[in-house]
C-alpha cells in the first residue's frame, strides 16, 4: 500500500501537479488580459527615460526595497536568484542538459543554493512574527512560506544524505537524472528502482510537498512572478 | 437690502476653499425654517456657489449685494 502511495506521489501526481499549475497560470493570466485596461495614467513623476526598460529592471532589482529595507532586499535577492538556481540545477539533473559536468555526482551548487534559500525563507517567515509585519500577515502568508521551508529543508536533507555512506554517494546526480528522465519520457518506471538510497522516503516527501506547491501556485501570491513587470510598467509607462 | 429680517450674520471673509459653503451648510440648521442668514464673504465665487448650493440643499438665496469689496448673501432656510 505504502509503495503504491509513494508511486502515486512520485509519478502520476507530478504530472497532475504540473498540468494543473500550467493550466491555472494560463487561466489566471488570460482572465486578467480580458479585463478592461486602465483609462488614465498611474505614472509617478519625474518621468524616467526608457520607461519600459526601466520598469522591467525595477521589477527584477527592486531598488525601492534596497533603499528602504536593505536587509529584506538582500534576502529577497538571495531567495529569487536561488529559486532560479534551483530550477536550473533540477533541469541539470537530466542527462540531456549539462550545466555542470555529466560525471559530477553533485547537483549544481553542491547543495549551497538549497541552504541559501532555506535561510532566506526562514528570514521571511520569522519577520512575519514581528510587529508590524505580523499585523498585515494572513494565514496564507505563513503557510506558503512554511511549505517552501519544508520543501527546501527536505531538499537539503537529500543533498546531505547522498553522502551519508563513507564510501561515497548513496544517490548521485545521475540517479536523480534517471528518475527525471523517466518522467519526461513518460516511461512510468517505478522510481524506487532508480533511487535505491535508504532516504527514499525523504525524496518522496520532497516531491509531495513540491506537488502541493504546484497545485497551490496559481491561486497564491507567487503569481506575482508573472505580474511584477506589468505592475511596474503601470508606475512608469 | 436692510429691510430683510436677519436671524444670524455669518462672517466668512477670507476663508480658504471650500470653507464658505461648508460653513454655510453647517450653520443653516442653527436658524429656524423661514429665517434668514446674512453671509459676509470676499469670494467672488460665492455668488455662484451659494445659489448652486441652495438649489441642491432645498434652501433659497433671496438676494446678494456688494459693497466695498464685501459680498453679502441672504440665505433663507426653507427646510
Amino acid at each position, binding site marked *: 500500500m505504502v509503495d503504491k502511495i509513494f508511486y502515486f506521489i512520485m509519478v502520476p501526481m507530478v504530472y497532475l501537479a504540473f498540468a494543473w499549475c500550467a493550466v491555472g497560470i494560463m487561466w489566471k493570466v488570460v482572465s486578467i488580459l480580458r479585463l478592461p485596461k486602465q*483609462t488614465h495614467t498611474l505614472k509617478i*513623476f519625474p518621468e524616467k527615460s526608457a520607461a519600459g526598460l526601466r520598469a522591467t529592471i525595477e521589477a527584477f532589482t527592486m531598488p525601492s*526595497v534596497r533603499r528602504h529595507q536593505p536587509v529584506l532586499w538582500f534576502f529577497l535577492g538571495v531567495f529569487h536568484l536561488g529559486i532560479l538556481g534551483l530550477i536550473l540545477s533540477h533541469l541539470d539533473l537530466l542527462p540531456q542538459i549539462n550545466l555542470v559536468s555529466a560525471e559530477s555526482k553533485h547537483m549544481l551548487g553542491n547543495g549551497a543554493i538549497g541552504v541559501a534559500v532555506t535561510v532566506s525563507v526562514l528570514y521571511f517567515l520569522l519577520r512575519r512574527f514581528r510587529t508590524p509585519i505580523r*499585523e498585515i500577515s494572513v494565514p496564507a502568508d505563513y503557510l506558503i512560506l512554511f511549505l517552501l521551508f519544508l520543501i527546501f529543508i527536505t531538499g537539503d536533507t537529500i543533498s546531505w544524505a547522498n553522502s551519508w555512506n563513507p564510501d561515497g554517494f548513496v544517490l548521485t546526480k545521475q540517479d536523480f537524472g534517471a528518475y527525471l528522465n523517466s518522467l519526461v519520457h513518460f516511461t512510468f518506471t517505478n522510481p524506487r528502482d532508480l533511487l535505491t538510497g535508504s532516504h527514499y522516503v525523504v525524496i518522496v516527501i520532497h516531491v509531495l510537498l513540491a506537488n502541493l506547491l504546484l497545485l497551490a501556485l496559481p491561486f497564491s501570491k507567487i503569481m506575482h512572478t508573472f505580474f511584477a513587470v506589468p505592475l511596474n510598467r503601470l508606475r512608469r509607462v | 437690502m436692510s429691510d430683510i429680517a436677519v436671524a444670524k450674520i455669518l462672517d466668512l471673509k477670507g476663508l480658504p476653499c471650500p470653507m464658505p459653503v461648508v460653513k454655510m451648510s453647517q450653520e443653516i440648521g442653527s436658524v429656524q425654517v423661514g429665517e434668514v442668514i446674512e453671509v459676509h464673504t470676499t*469670494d467672488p*465665487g460665492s455668488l*455662484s456657489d451659494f445659489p448652486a448650493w441652495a*438649489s*441642491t440643499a432645498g434652501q433659497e438665496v433671496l438676494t446678494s449685494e456688494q459693497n466695498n469689496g464685501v459680498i453679502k448673501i441672504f440665505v433663507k432656510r426653507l427646510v
Partner: protein
Amino acid sequence: MDETRKQELIKTLSSRLNQAMRMYLDNCTRCGTCIEACHAYASEPDIKYSPVGRAQNIRRLYEKYFKGAGKLAPWLSEAIEFDDAVMKKVYDTAYTCTGCRRCVTYCPFGIDTQQIQSLAKQLLIVADMEPKVLSMLADMSIAKGKNIDKTKGSFATAVSNLETEVLERWRSEAGAKAVPLDVQDANVLYIALAGKHSIIPAASIMNAAKEKWSLSYFEAVNFGAFVGNPQKTKEIADRIIQEATRLNVKEVVICECGTAYRVMKYMTGEHPFKVISFIELIARYLQEGRIKLDKAKLQGRKVTYHDPCQLARNGGVYEEPRYILSHLTDDFVEMTPTREDNWCCGGGGGLVAMGEKDFRMKSAKVKVDQFTATGAQVLSTACENCHTQLSDLSEHYKTGVKVEYLSDLVSKALVQE
C-alpha cells in the same frame, strides 16, 4: 446590512476590477515595505494608517467574492463579507489616506493605494456612508454648471470690484480690464477657486506678462474626485472643458490646486487645448523675460518649498517652482526628504474640506518636523489644500513659520518698469 445593499456593493466592487485593480489586489506579498512610506503611520504608528493596512480592508472583500480560495477557505486570506463593521474599515481606507501616492514609490510592484482608496470611496457612496460635505460640494459644483447663466452678472460685478487690489500689485494700461471674463480666442483660460486670493495674484502676474487671458466662471477644484464619484468627477470637469472649447482658448491654466491639476491634465482624456498649472505659466513668463521679480521683498527671510503631491509626484511639476524661487530669493533651502520623496502635508483626499482637524494635526507630525528642520521662516507651496493644512499645522504646533502661496510671493515681487 440588507442583502440588496450587499449585492450593490459587490456589483460596485466588480465594476472597478480592471486590469490594474485586479493586479493590485492579487499580487501584494505583504512585504511591508510601504508601511513607513505613509506620513500618517510615521506620525502615529498604527497599522490601520499604513498603505497595506488600508489595502487589506478592500483586498479581504475582494478575496471573498472574486477568488475561489476566498470562497472555499476564507480563513486562509482572512476573507470577509460586507457588513456594517467592515464598512467602518472601508471608511478608514478611504479617509485616512490623502491619496499622496508616496507609498507607490516604496512598493516593489508599484501598487497604487490611491486607486484602492478611490474604490473604497465609491463603496462608501453605495453604502450611503460617504462624508456628506463632499457630496454636497460635488452636487453644488454640478448645479453651478447647470445654472451659471443666472449668476454670471453678479460674478462679473464681484470680479470687477477686485480691480483696485489687482492694480495695487500691477498697474495695467488704462482701459485694460484687470480681470477679463469671456475673452474669445484667449491664450489662457485661468481656472481659479472661489476666493479672491486665487484670482488677484494671478491676474496681476498675467497682466504684467501682457497675456491675453480670461477668467473662468468655474472653480478648479473637483469635489467629485474627492468623494470618489467618477460620474460627478466627469460632470464637474466637463463644465470647464465646455467653457474652454466655447472660448477656443489655447491653454487651460489651473490655479494652485493640486487635485484640480491632476484631474484636468491626466484624468479627463484628450482635449483640444493644453492643460498646464499656473506655476508652469509663471516659470515660462520668467524664462521669456515677460515678468521680472524683486528679490528684496523676501530679503532676510529663509524660504523653503513644499511640493504638493498632486502637482509634483503625481503631476511632474518639480523644476518650475524651484526656478521661480531662484528669482525670488537667494536664501532658499530644500526640505529633507524632498521632491518625489517629500512628505505629504496630510490634508489631501478631501480631509481639509471635511474638517477632521484632530486627525490632520496628529497624522502630519512628521511634516511639521520636516519643515521646521529647515529653519525657514517662509514655507511656500502651490496648492490651496496644502496651504490650508500647512497653515493649520504651523498654528497648531506653534512653529512661527509663515505659509505662502508661490503666486502670492511672485505677484508681490513684480517689478514695474
